[in-house]
C-alpha cells in the first residue's frame, strides 16, 4: 500500500489518535502527575481488561452484532477459574477452563443468534442475566479469594518493566489485527457485517463464522477474567457489571460502525486508551466519580457525533 493511501484509508484512526494526544497534552498541562512513566503504565494496566474485552466486541460489532453479556461472562469465568485454583488444579488447566467457560457462553450466544434466529441484542441480553445468575449461584453470592503467587503474577508480574496485563493486551491486539486483516475469518467478519445476503450468495457459511465470532468474544471475556481475578486476588460474582458498555464505548470511539462492516482493531485500542486516560486523568484531578460518569458519557456521544459528521462530509 502506498504511503498516501495508507493515511487515507486510516484517516478515521488517525483522527482518534489525534484525540488521544490532545487529551494527553491537556492532562499534562493540568496535572504534573499524569505524564510519568509509572502513571502511564498504570493507565495501560487499568485499560487492559476493557481493551481485551473490546477486541471481542469489535469483531462482533463489525459483523453487525452486539454482545451485552461480556461482563457477566467474565464474572462467571472468574468464579469457575477461582474454584478450579482453589481445588488445586494445575495452573494451565485452570486457565484453560476460564477460557473455555467464556467460549462456551459465547458459543451459546452465537447458536441462539444464528440457528435460533434471535436478534443479537436479545440473545446476549438473556446471556447477560443467565451468566450473572450462574456466577452468583456457583459461589452462593460470595467471592472466592486468596491465590498462589504464580497465578497472581498475571496481574502483578512484569517483563522488562512492562506489567504482564499490558503484555497480554498487546499480544491480543497483534493477534486480533492479524486475524481481522489476514485471515478468512477476518475477511468474512467484514463481509457478513457489510452485507449478509451478499455473503451468503458468495458461498460463505455465515452461520458458522458468526457463531465463531461470538465464541471468540466470549473467550476473550474468559481471558479478561484471568487478569481481573489475579489483580484483585479474588473472584467476585458481581464483577464486570457495566463492562459491556465500556467495551462498546471503546469500540465505537475507535471508529467501528454499529451498523457493521467497518472498523479497525487499532481504533478500538485507541478508544480503550482514551477511556482509560480520561478516567485516570479525572481521578488525578480529584474530580468526583459522579462527575466522571457525566464526562465519559458526553465524550462517547461527542465522539460519535463527530464521526458521523465527518462521514457525511466525505460522502
Amino acid at each position, binding site marked *: 500500500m502506498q504511503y498516501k493511501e495508507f493515511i487515507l484509508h486510516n484517516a478515521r484512526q488517525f483522527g482518534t489518535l489525534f484525540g488521544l494526544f490532545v487529551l494527553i497534552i491537556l492532562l499534562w498541562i493540568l496535572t504534573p502527575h499524569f505524564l510519568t512513566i509509572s502513571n502511564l503504565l498504570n493507565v495501560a494496566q487499568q485499560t487492559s481488561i476493557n481493551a481485551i474485552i473490546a477486541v471481542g466486541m469489535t469483531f462482533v460489532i463489525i459483523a453487525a452484532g452486539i454482545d451485552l453479556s461480556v461482563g457477566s461472562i467474565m464474572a462467571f469465568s472468574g468464579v469457575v477459574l477461582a474454584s478450579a485454583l482453589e481445588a488445586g488444579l494445575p495452573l494451565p488447566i485452570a486457565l484453560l477452563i476460564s477460557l473455555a467457560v467464556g467460549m462456551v457462553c459465547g458459543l451459546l450466544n452465537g447458536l441462539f443468534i444464528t440457528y435460533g434466529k434471535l436478534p443479537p441484542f436479545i440473545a446476549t441480553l438473556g446471556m447477560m442475566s443467565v451468566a450473572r445468575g450462574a456466577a452468583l449461584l456457583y459461589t452462593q453470592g460470595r467471592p472466592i479469594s486468596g491465590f498462589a503467587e504464580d497465578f497472581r503474577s498475571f496481574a502483578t508480574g512484569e517483563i522488562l518493566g512492562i506489567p504482564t496485563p499490558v503484555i497480554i493486551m498487546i499480544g491480543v491486539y497483534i493477534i486480533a489485527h492479524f486475524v481481522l486483516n489476514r485471515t478468512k475469518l477476518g475477511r468474512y467478519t467484514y*463481509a457478513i457485517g457489510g452485507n449478509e445476503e451478499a455473503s451468503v450468495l458468495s458461498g460463505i457459511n455465515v452461520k458458522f463464522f458468526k457463531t465463531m465470532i461470538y465464541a471468540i468474544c466470549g473467550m476473550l471475556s474468559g481471558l479478561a477474567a484471568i487478569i481481573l481475578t489475579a489483580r484483585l486476588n479474588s473472584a467476585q460474582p458481581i464483577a464486570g457489571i457495566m463492562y459491556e458498555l465500556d467495551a462498546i464505548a471503546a469500540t465505537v470511539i475507535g471508529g467501528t460502525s454499529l451498523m457493521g462492516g467497518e472498523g479497525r482493531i487499532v481504533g478500538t485500542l485507541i478508544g480503550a486508551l482514551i477511556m482509560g486516560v480520561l478516567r485516570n486523568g479525572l481521578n488525578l484531578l480529584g474530580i468526583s466519580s459522579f462527575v466522571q460518569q457525566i464526562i465519559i458519557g458526553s465524550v462517547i456521544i461527542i465522539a460519535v457525533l463527530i464521526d458521523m459528521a465527518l462521514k457525511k462530509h466525505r460522502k
Partner: protein
Amino acid sequence: MENTIGGQARSQEKYPVLEMRNIRKEFPGVLALDNVNFILLKGEVHILLGENGAGKSTLVKIISGAYQKSAGSLVLDGEEIEIKNPRQAQRLGISIIYQEFNLIPELTAAENIFLGREFLFSPGIIDQKKQNLEAQRLLDDLGVTINARHFVADLGVAQKQMVEVAKALSLDAKIIIMDEPTSALTKKEITELFTAIKHLKERGVSIIYISHRLEELSEIGDRVTVLRDGKHIGTHQVSNLSEDDLIKMMVDRELTEQYPKQRQQIGDEILRIEKLNRRGILEDISFSMHQGEILGVAGLLGSGRTELARAIFGADKIDSGKIYIGGKLQQVKNPKNAINLHIGYLTEDRKTEGLVLDLSVQSNVCLASLEQFSKFGVINPKREEKTAFKYVNDLRIKTPSLNQKVLFLSGGNQQKVVVSKWLCSNAKVLIFDEPTRGIDVGSKVEIYQLMNRLTASGVGILMISSELPEIMGMSDRVMVMRQGMIAGIYNTDEVTQEKILQDALGAVSYAV
C-alpha cells in the same frame, strides 16, 4: 399519434383533470421518461400499458409526488402545479394504491382509513362511534361488504385494497392510481374490484390503472396509453384496439446494432434442469443449456425468473426436481455447493445482494474464492492481490486502486467487479440477472462484449432480462416464463418480440 379526446359529443363533460406535458425524468445514466404527454379525463379509467421498465411506474410516481420530474409541466384542473411530495399530492386529491399495502394490520379498517385524521370528542379522545359510522359509509358506497370494525389483518387482499380506496375517498381523492391491483386477486375478487371501480367512476373519480392483463382492458378501461422505453407511443379508446395492436405498440421497435453479439460454437450440455418445483413459486421447470450459449430468460416481474435463478444456485430450497451440471446429477443445497460446482450468480440487485460495498475491490473480487488464496485460514495477500489485479486489468475496471471501496465505483464498474468475482471462482455456468440494469450505455456494451468473451471460452450464460431488445440482441435461445412456468423456448432467430410478449402475458390463451 393523435389523441381521441376532441371532437366527440361526450367530451364536454369529460374534461381533463390532469395534463402532463413533455414530462422528462432522468436518473443517473438513464432517461426514464422522454417527453411524455398524458391526459387524464374526469371520470375515466385510463389504462397505462407497457413492458417492465417502460416508464409506467416512474410516470405515476411523478403524479403521486414520490419522484420529481426533470422537465415538463403538470396541469391539475387547469392550473399548473408542482407536486413536491406524496403528502401534497394527497392534499391535491391524488391517491395511489400500492401493490404492497400501506395499512397497519393491527388496527381496524376504520382506524386505518382515518389514521392521522381521527374524529375526536375532545383533544386526544377518539370518537370511535362516529369514525366507524363514517368509515362504514365509505366502504358501503364502494359496493363492498367489509365491516369497518374488523382488523385489517383479518381482511383478504381485495378487501385491503378496498380499505385503501376508502381511505383515498375519505381524503376527497379526485384521481386514484392503481398499480396492478388484480395481480394477487381471485376471479371473484376481481369482479368486486371492478364493481367498486364503476362506483368510483360514477362519482367522477378518475382512475389511472396499471395492468399487464390485456383481457381486463376492454372490461374496465376507457382509454389506454402505451409507453415504451420511456416514450409515449399512443393514447387510444380501448374499444378501437385489438390485443395484437396493443402488443405491437408495446414492442414495435427497430433493433439497432447496439448488441455486439458473436455466436459461438455451441458445445456440450452444461446445465440441465428437470421438473424443478417450488410450491406456489416454480412449477415443472425443465430446460437445458450448453457451453458457449446464452440462454435468455424473458418474463414479467413476478413470473419466477429470479426465483428460478435462486433455486439453481441453492439460495432457496426446492421441493423437487433434478439439476444436472456437466451431465452429472448434483445436489445443490446451498450457494457454497453451487460455487463448488462452478455456478456463479450475478444478482438482480448488485448493491444489496452482489457486493459488500464497504469492502475493497480486491476483497469483493476474491470473496467467493478465498480458499484459493489461503492456507489454514490465513490469506496470502500477494496472491490475492495478483489475482484481483489480473481481473481489474482484464475487465478494465476503472478504480484508483485495488483497495478502493466498491461503494465509490460507478454502476458499470461495480457490475464488472461482480462478474470478476465469479470468474475468479472459476464459474462455468453463469446466471446473470438483469446484468445491465442501471448501467450507462457505454458500460452496457462492455458487459455484452464480456459475455461474448465468456461464451467463447465455453461458459454458458443464463441471462434474465426485462429488456426484450437485450434478450433478442444477445441470446442464442429465449425461454419465456409466466406464473412460475415455462411458457415457451425458442431459437432467437425464429421468434419475434410480439410472440415473446404474448407468451409472457399469456395472451394466446384468450386471443384464440
